[in-house]
């Protein structure tokens, strides 16, 4: 491959020892660590030569077990053995489609769900940090010293909250994070550089719990992501679960205890894996109840029960192609990544869709970690002359903010190349309005309620003016990790406010330091105070919104409805004076429900207003 020639800034560069840099693939099912040795990326195996570490953490009576040891005990201690923790990163209990599928003691916490274990309540960030720490120690033992920098991969379709949680976990594990890198992009680097590829490629990445599709153009050493799409809650795990459900039904089994459920799930996964090379696979297990399971899963049955899941991956593929403004015929090759792409079902579906057999001359488990190691090496300044390439990646989901009527206004559309900085002007809604809440959201839907809320911040001290006279410029900046910071400035007075958008449950630098030192002593107390503070912010926000809505569009309300809203408002005010987050949240929820009808009608009104006046200028920001 001919590469871009870029002059060394200060020649001649002194020869120095390469810095210790690693790439980590933090997977749903398995994780890996890799480094670049003498110019060649290699996976660092454990003492027994195993490259993969199962992403499983067991909080055992005698300490924390990670990987194979934890996996071996999972059926005996399912509640304290956390598998697939990546599914919970940056997710609340309400986000989990079916929390009964998991045997854990979930603890509702602001924003991100937590898990009760015998070592106390653990956030997914802490569990992930335990996995990352063991990989860091493995690398340090083999590299002979402290790791100076790491690139950690994330699914391309991870939103801001999930990315932030991953970065926090890495820092908690004592890693200096050079970059969060999208998994399919990492795979493209490893594949592209190894094969001197040029042209447009698709990376189909089906992992244990996440699915990504990225379309990249490779031109003379530049890896340009044209579009990405996916599903951050779809992966090999779901195929296992389908088999598990089938076994329950086919074996006419009663509801299972957690340990039996885990055992049957493990057997289901083994059967799925066996079907890669066979036409049928046995599922045989003796349950604690004395029941014997003895089933045979054929590949035809498997195809039938997983048909829907396979189709579910093709939808984002079509969307990514459309966003890239490309056709299937434009794709020169399809790279398969992720252990789940070993399934013949998947390979056939991909081949059929793209009209060509996928490229399989690389190890789908290792390619992401290898690409991450190459990126870490480059970011550390270790690259050799001539070893010159560049990544141009995108954000997977649109970023915007809430405008009147609960509608989301996009500021940075999905598939914008990062880093990106984009500004848009907004104005006040009421006469004399002196403050404005900037509510930052991520997602493609029109209604804020259907998008992910990332942060709220306030711009105060706006000089009183007539409604529509103030000019507030909101600027979004997304860095090369895909993380957002936002700021707002009133143009007339110069008043300014800004936040680095951390989802409200994200960890501040101070939080991390504290957790690193001593996390357990006051945890419960801190949590309660923080939970209340956050519920209070939400309560104030909602109460203000509802009052505004009633003031602006009260004519849309029937008398009885209005009384219900007033009562709900009073209830929120009462609990706001207390200190119990739970009851305040309940009151907020009740107010939410009471005002739902009004919100919907107001939205209809604003939509019909927008439509009647819909012409070019309303479609354009500035």
């Amino acid at each position, binding site marked *: 491959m001919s590469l*871009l020639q*870029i002059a060394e800034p200060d020649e001649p560069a002194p020869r120095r020892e390469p*810095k210790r840099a690693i790439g980590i693939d933090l997977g749903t099912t398995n994780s890996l660590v890799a480094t670049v040795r003498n110019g060649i990326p290699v996976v660092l195996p454990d003492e027994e030569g195993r490259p993969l570490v199962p992403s499983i953490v067991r909080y055992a009576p005698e300490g924390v077990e990670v990987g194979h040891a934890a996996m071996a005990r999972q059926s005996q201690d399912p509640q304290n053995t956390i598998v697939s923790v990546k599914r919970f990163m940056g997710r609340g209990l309400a986000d989990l489609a079916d929390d009964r599928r998991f045997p854990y003691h979930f603890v509702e916490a602001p924003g991100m769900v937590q898990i009760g274990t015998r070592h106390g309540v653990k956030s997914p960030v802490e569990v992930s940090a335990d996995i990352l720490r063991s990989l860091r120690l493995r690398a340090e033992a083999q590299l002979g010293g402290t790791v100076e920098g790491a690139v950690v991969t994330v699914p391309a379709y991870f939103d801001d909250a999930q990315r932030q949680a991953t970065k926090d976990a890495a820092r908690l594990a004592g890693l200096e994070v*050079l*970059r969060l890198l999208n998994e399919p992009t990492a795979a493209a680097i490893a594949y592209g550089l190894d094969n001197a590829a040029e042209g447009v490629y698709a990376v189909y990445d089906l992992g244990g719990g996440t699915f990504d599709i990225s379309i990249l153009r490779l*031109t*003379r050493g*530049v890896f*340009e992501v044209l579009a990405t799409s996916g599903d951050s809650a779809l992966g090999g795990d779901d195929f296992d679960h389908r088999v598990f459900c089938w076994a329950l039904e086919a074996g006419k089994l009663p509801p299972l205890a957690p340990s039996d459920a885990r055992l049957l799930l493990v057997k289901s996964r083994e059967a799925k894996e066996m079907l890669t090379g066979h036409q049928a696979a046995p599922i045989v297990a003796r349950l604690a109840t004395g029941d014997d399971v003895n089933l045979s899963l054929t590949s035809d049955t498997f195809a039938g029960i997983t048909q829907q899941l396979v189709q579910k991956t093709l*939808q984002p593929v*079509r*969307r990514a192609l*459309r966003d890239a403004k490309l056709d299937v015929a434009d794709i020169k090759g399809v790279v398969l990544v992720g252990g789940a792409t070993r399934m013949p079902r998947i390979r056939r579906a991909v081949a059929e869709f793209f009209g060509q057999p996928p490229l399989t001359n690389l190890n789908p488990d290792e390619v992401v970690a290898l690409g991450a190691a190459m*990126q870490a090496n*480059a*970011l*550390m*300044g270790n690259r050799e002359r001539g070893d*010159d390439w*560049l*990544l*141009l990646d995108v954000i997977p989901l649109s970023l915007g903010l809430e405008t009147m009527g609960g509608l989301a206004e996009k500021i940075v559309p999905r598939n*914008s*190349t*990062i*880093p*990106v*900085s*984009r500004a848009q002007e907004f104005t006040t809604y009421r006469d004399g309005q002196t403050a404005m809440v900037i509510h930052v959201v991520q997602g493609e839907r029109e209604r804020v309620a259907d998008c992910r809320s990332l942060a709220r911040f306030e711009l105060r001290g706006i000089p009183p003016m007539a409604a529509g006279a103030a000019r507030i410029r909101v600027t979004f*900046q997304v*860095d*090369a990790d895909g993380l957002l910071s936002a700021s707002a400035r009133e143009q007339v007075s110069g008043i300014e406010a800004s936040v680095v958008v951390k989802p409200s449950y994200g960890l501040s630098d101070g939080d991390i330091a504290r957790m690193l030192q001593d996390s357990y002593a006051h945890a419960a107390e801190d949590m309660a105070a923080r939970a209340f503070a956050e519920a209070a912010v939400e309560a104030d926000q909602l109460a203000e919104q509802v009052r505004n809505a009633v003031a602006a569009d009260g004519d849309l309300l029937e008398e009885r409805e209005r009384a219900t809203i007033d009562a709900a408002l009073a209830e929120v005010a009462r609990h706001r004076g207390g200190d119990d987050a739970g009851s305040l949240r309940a009151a907020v929820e009740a107010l939410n429900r009471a005002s739902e009808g009004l919100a919907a009608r107001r939205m209809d009104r604003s939509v019909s207003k927008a439509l009647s006046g819909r*012409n*070019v*200028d309303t*479609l*354009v920001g*500035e």
Partner: protein
Amino acid sequence: MIDFSRNHFELFGLPVRFATDPDALDARYRELQAEVHPDRFGAGSETERRLAHQASARVNEAYRALRDPVERARYLLAMRGVDAMDQKDTKLPLDFLEAQLECRERAAEAAESEDIAGLEAILAGIHRERVARQGELAALLDGECDAERARQAVRELKFLAKVAEDVETMLEALDA
């Protein structure tokens, strides 16, 4: 680092005109990013990395504006002091609006009857119209500039883009 005072065309070393060579634009974009992208400064100081972020974002912004015909035309008009999207004057010819309204209706009907091929045909039709409109714009902007007519063509092009986007959304919904 790059000179932030230069306009988009200067930044990319391209002639100030609507008709562009997309290959030259792409190639120049990659060269610029190879110089300023934050990844080039991974081992650099905090300040260097911040500057790289700004410069790289600036290059991305310019590339986006130059690559998109509507944005490129708006930018050219803005350089001449004309605001194509001025909210005080948003008139579009009635026959154009009627044609678009009718197009939207046909799309909505096709979506209703889940006629994917029909929607795709409508999308192709809009695309042809956009290409024709771009040809007009090149003549209006690069020849003897008629700012007022160019302004209207930009708004029509923007409107067509929005209609195309709506049809794409309908297609996407049928996919689900």
